[in-house]
């Protein structure tokens, strides 16, 4: 009899289940949302808030690094306003 490895089984299973979530059609997601009484818009808003917070952390970190690297030199504006990183919709 072979030894049971729950951790390995779980890893494989979670991998497969994540594939199922990725493969779910838009219609399946909408149907589930409707049946369960939660709205896609509300969930999407929650996720966007997390993304925005993470983005804010990264921008803050970039700004601090930029400031630190210019210690003793003439300061430039920080990178907070740069590029598409900041074109986040709400």
């Amino acid at each position, binding site marked *: 009899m072979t030894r049971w490895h*729950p*951790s390995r*089984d*779980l890893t*494989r*299973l*979670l*991998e*497969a*289940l*994540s594939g*199922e*979530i*990725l*493969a*779910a059609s*838009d219609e*399946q*997601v*909408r*149907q*589930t*949302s409707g*049946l*369960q009484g*939660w709205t*896609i*818009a509300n*969930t*999407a808003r*929650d*996720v*966007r808030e*997390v*993304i925005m*917070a*993470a*983005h804010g*952390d*990264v921008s803050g*970190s*970039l700004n601090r690094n930029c400031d630190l690297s210019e210690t003793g030199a003439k300061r430039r504006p920080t990178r907070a306003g740069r*590029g*598409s*990183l900041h*074109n*986040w*919709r709400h």
Partner: protein
Amino acid sequence: MSALGSVKRIYRVTMERLTIAPNADDRGAHAADVASAIDALSDVDLVRLQALARLWSRDLPGGLGWSDILHEAIARVLDGSRPWPPDVPILAFLSGVMRSICNDHWRRARLEQRLLVSRDDPDQRSWPCEEAHEVPDPERVLAAAQTLANVYRLFAGDLLALKIIAGMADGLAAREICRIHDMSELDYDTTRRRMRRTLLRHQQNWSK
């Protein structure tokens, strides 16, 4: 070397292996691309993203929840420490990053636990680095068994789904699952669709 020194060295080596350090130019270009891709995700994609975050973060040590893991994943891809490979869909990529982060948290929890054990037990102070990662961790095994049981419970009453789940846990391909259980392709596909709905339906109960 003291026990504390050994554990610190293990931690440092582990973290060095887990950390990728691309140059600053690459990071900037990469961050802009990945930010645009994340920005372009539809509401339905964001629901999938949350479901993936909940799936990977279930039962994590330290009370971490889906939003902690998603936050960390987004930060790592935006700062360029996790480069987005070409031809990998953004959702699949983010799912992989979250899985990796969760594995890091489990590794860290194991290292911290070993530090505590080694303080009390001199016999535990000489684990080589590689061996330390292979030593079975009873708590992790128990947590994995409980999580597996929870997943099976999710599909209780759906015999075909349980067969597919068991096959997935064994690492079997779809064709093998059908052959072993004498399941038609139609039954397999129909059950998979049912499983997806169940997964999405219960995702809000997986992780805080």
